[in-house]
C-alpha cells in the first residue's frame, strides 16, 4: 500500500489505460464496460486527489519509469499545474461518464465508445503529467487517434466530414510538433523537459531555436484553437455526440494551452524574439473572432464551440503578459473554463433531450417545463459571461486586472469588450431556449433523466464553490504561477539540487 502511495504520480495515467484495456476485453458486453469505466474513473479521481495533496505537502513529484537514470529515461513530473490539471481531468471524466449513462446509445457502445473514451482520458492525463517532450508528443498522438474514433463513432456523413477536418489539421499540428522536437533534440541532445530547460537557458539564441519556438506555438495553437488556426474547431465539434463534444470542449483544447504554458515558461521565454507581441496579437484575435463567430450562430453547440475559442484568448492573454498576476489569472481561468464549458455542453445535451433540437429557433419554453434544467444552465452560462460572484467573474477579473497592471490597456479593453459580447450570446440561448414560447407545442413534456441532471449539478456546484470561496483557488493559482515563472524549482525537482545551483551561477 505504501508503494502505491509513493508512486501516486503514475496512477492518474495508468488507471484509465488499464481500464480502457479491460473495457476492450469485455468488447461484446457494454453493460459490463459501463461499470468498469465508472469504477476506473472513480479510482482515477481518488488517485488525482492523492497526487494533489502530495504535491501540496511535499512539493513537485517525479517518477522515472523503469529506473532509467534521469535525463535518459522517460519521467513523469507533477508540479502544481500538472497535478491540478490531472485532478480537473478526473473530475470532468467521471462527471461526463455519468452523464453518458443516459446519453450514450447501445450502437455507440458496440462501436467501442468506452475503450476510446478511457484511452483519450489517459492521453490527456499523460500529457499533463509527462516530463519528457517526446513523450508529450506520444500522448498527443494517443489523444488524436482516440479523438478521431470518438468523433466518427456514428459513422454518419456529417461526422466523417467533421472528423476529416479535425484530423487533417491536427495531424499537421502533431507533425509540426514532431519536427520541432527533432530539431530541438539535434540542437540540445536531450528530450527531458527539465534538462531542456537547463540547457536552453545556457545556450545562445539561434535561428534553429527561434524556428523551434515558432513551430511549437503553431503546433499547440492548432490543438488549442488559437487565432488564426481555430477554424477546424467549430467545424467539427458540433458533429459529435454531446458527450464527446463536452469532453472535447473541456479538455482537448486545454491540453494545447497547457503545453504552450509549459514550453514557454520552462524551455523558452515569451520575452525573446518577439514572441510576446505575437502571442498578444493572437490572444486578441482569438478572443474577438471566437465571440463574433458565435454571435451569428443558431445551433447551441456551434455557439458554444465558438465560445471555446474566444475563452482560449483570455488564457493566452495571461501567457502574453507573463507577469505572476497574469499567469495566476490564466491558470485560474483554465480550471474555471474546463468545468464551465463542459457543463454548458452537457446542458446543450439536456436541452436536446427536452426539446428534440439543437436549433435555438425551434426550441423554447423550457423555463416553464424544466425549471431545474433552467437553473443548471444558468449557473455555467452566467459564469462564462463573467457575472459576479461566479467563477468566471474572478477569472476574468484576475486576467484583465493583470493586463491593466502591466499597462497593456488595449488587451484589457479587448477582454472587457469580448466579455460583454459573451453576455449577449448566453442571453441569446437563455431567451430562445428558456423564455420564448416554443414554436411547436409539445403534447407530452419530455423528461430529462437524473443521470444527466446530477453531473450538471455537481459541476455547477464546483463553479459555485470557486465563485463564492475563490480564495484557496486564487492562492493555489498564485503559487502555481510563481513556480511556473521560476523554472528552477521544476528543474531541481527533476534533476536534483545541483542542476539548480549551476543554473543559479549562470544567471
Amino acid at each position, binding site marked *: 500500500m505504501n508503494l*502505491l502511495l509513493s508512486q501516486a504520480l503514475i496512477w492518474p495515467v*495508468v488507471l484509465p*489505460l488499464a481500464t480502457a484495456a479491460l473495457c*476492450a*476485453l469485455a*468488447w461484446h458486453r457494454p453493460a459490463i464496460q459501463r461499470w468498469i469505466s465508472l469504477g476506473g474513473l472513480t479510482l482515477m479521481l481518488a488517485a488525482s486527489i492523492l497526487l494533489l495533496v502530495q504535491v501540496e505537502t511535499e512539493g513537485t513529484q517525479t517518477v522515472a519509469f523503469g529506473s532509467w537514470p534521469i535525463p535518459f529515461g522517460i519521467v513523469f513530473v507533477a508540479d502544481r499545474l500538472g497535478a491540478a490539471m490531472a485532478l480537473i481531468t478526473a473530475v470532468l471524466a467521471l462527471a461526463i461518464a455519468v452523464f453518458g449513462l443516459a446519453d450514450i446509445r447501445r450502437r455507440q457502445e458496440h462501436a467501442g465508445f468506452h475503450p476510446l473514451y478511457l484511452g483519450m482520458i489517459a492521453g490527456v492525463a499523460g500529457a499533463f503529467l509527462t516530463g519528457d517532450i517526446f513523450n508529450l508528443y506520444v500522448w498527443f498522438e494517443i489523444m488524436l487517434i482516440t479523438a478521431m474514433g470518438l468523433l466518427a463513432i456514428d459513422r454518419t456523413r456529417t461526422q466523417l466530414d467533421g472528423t476529416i477536418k479535425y484530423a487533417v489539421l491536427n495531424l499537421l499540428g502533431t507533425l509540426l510538433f514532431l519536427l520541432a522536437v527533432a530539431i530541438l533534440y539535434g540542437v540540445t541532445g536531450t528530450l527531458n523537459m527539465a534538462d531542456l530547460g537547463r540547457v536552453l537557458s545556457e545556450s545562445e539564441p539561434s535561428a534553429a531555436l527561434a524556428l523551434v519556438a515558432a513551430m511549437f506555438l503553431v503546433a499547440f495553437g492548432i490543438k488549442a484553437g488559437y487565432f488564426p488556426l481555430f477554424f477546424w474547431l467549430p467545424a467539427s465539434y458540433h458533429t459529435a455526440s454531446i458527450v464527446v463534444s463536452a469532453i472535447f470542449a473541456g479538455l482537448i483544447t486545454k491540453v494545447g494551452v497547457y503545453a504552450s504554458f509549459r514550453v514557454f515558461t520552462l524551455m523558452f521565454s515569451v520575452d525573446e524574439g518577439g514572441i510576446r507581441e505575437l502571442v498578444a496579437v493572437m490572444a486578441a484575435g482569438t478572443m474577438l473572432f471566437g465571440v463574433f463567430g458565435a454571435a451569428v450562430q443558431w445551433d447551441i453547440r456551434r455557439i458554444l464551440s465558438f465560445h471555446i475559442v474566444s475563452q482560449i484568448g483570455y488564457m493566452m492573454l495571461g501567457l502574453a503578459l507573463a507577469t505572476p498576476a497574469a499567469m495566476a489569472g490564466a491558470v485560474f481561468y483554465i480550471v474555471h473554463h474546463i468545468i464551465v464549458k463542459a457543463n454548458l455542453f452537457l446542458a446543450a445535451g439536456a436541452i436536446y433531450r427536452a426539446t428534440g433540437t439543437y436549433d435555438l429557433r425551434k426550441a423554447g419554453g423550457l423555463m416553464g417545463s424544466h425549471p431545474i434544467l433552467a437553473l443548471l444552465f444558468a449557473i455555467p452560462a452566467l459564469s462564462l459571461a463573467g457575472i459576479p460572484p461566479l467563477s468566471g467573474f474572478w477569472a476574468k477579473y484576475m486576467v484583465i486586472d493583470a493586463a491593466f497592471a502591466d499597462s497593456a490597456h488595449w488587451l484589457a479593453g479587448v477582454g472587457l469588450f469580448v466579455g460583454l459580447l459573451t453576455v449577449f450570446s448566453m442571453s441569446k440561448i437563455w431567451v430562445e431556449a428558456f423564455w420564448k414560447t416554443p414554436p411547436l407545442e409539445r403534447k407530452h413534456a419530455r423528461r430529462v433523466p437524473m443521470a444527466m441532471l446530477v453531473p450538471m449539478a455537481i459541476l455547477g456546484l464546483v463553479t459555485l464553490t470557486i465563485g463564492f470561496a475563490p480564495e484557496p483557488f486564487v492562492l493555489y493559482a498564485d503559487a502555481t504561477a510563481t513556480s511556473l515563472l521560476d523554472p528552477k524549482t521544476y528543474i531541481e525537482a527533476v534533476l536534483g539540487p545541483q542542476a539548480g545551483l549551476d543554473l543559479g551561477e549562470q544567471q
Partner: protein
Amino acid sequence: MNSMIFTASARILFALMLAASIFILWRGHDEPGGGFVGGLVASMALAVVALAEGVPRARRMLRIHPMSLAGLGVFLGFVSGLPGLLIDGSYLTHQWVFFPNGFKLGTTMVFDIGVYLVVLGGMLALVFRLYEDAP
C-alpha cells in the same frame, strides 16, 4: 477467393507464419525482432486465412474479437510493470529470473507479448473490416 491451391496452401502458410511470428517474438529478447514485428507477422498469417477461406472463418479461428485481443495486450503491458513497483518501488522496472544454464526469463517478456497482442488485435480489426467490405 475460390482457388483450391490457394486454400490448401493457406493452411500451411498459416502454420508457418504463426510459428515464425512466435520465433520472432522470442528472438526479440536480445536480437532484432520482438513483439511488434511478431504481431505483424501473426496478423498476416490470419489475414491469409481470411483471404483464402473468408473472414467469418478467420474470425472463428480467432475465437475472440480482435479488439479484445488488443485490450488483453494493453492489460498485459500494464501488469508487466507491477512486479517492479512491488519489488523495488518503480513502475515498469523489469524483473529477471536467471537459471543456472544461462536461460533467463523476465517481465519484459510479458510486456512484449502484450505488444504482440496489441499489434495482432489492432491489425486484424482493420484487416477483417477491409476484407468484409470488399466485394
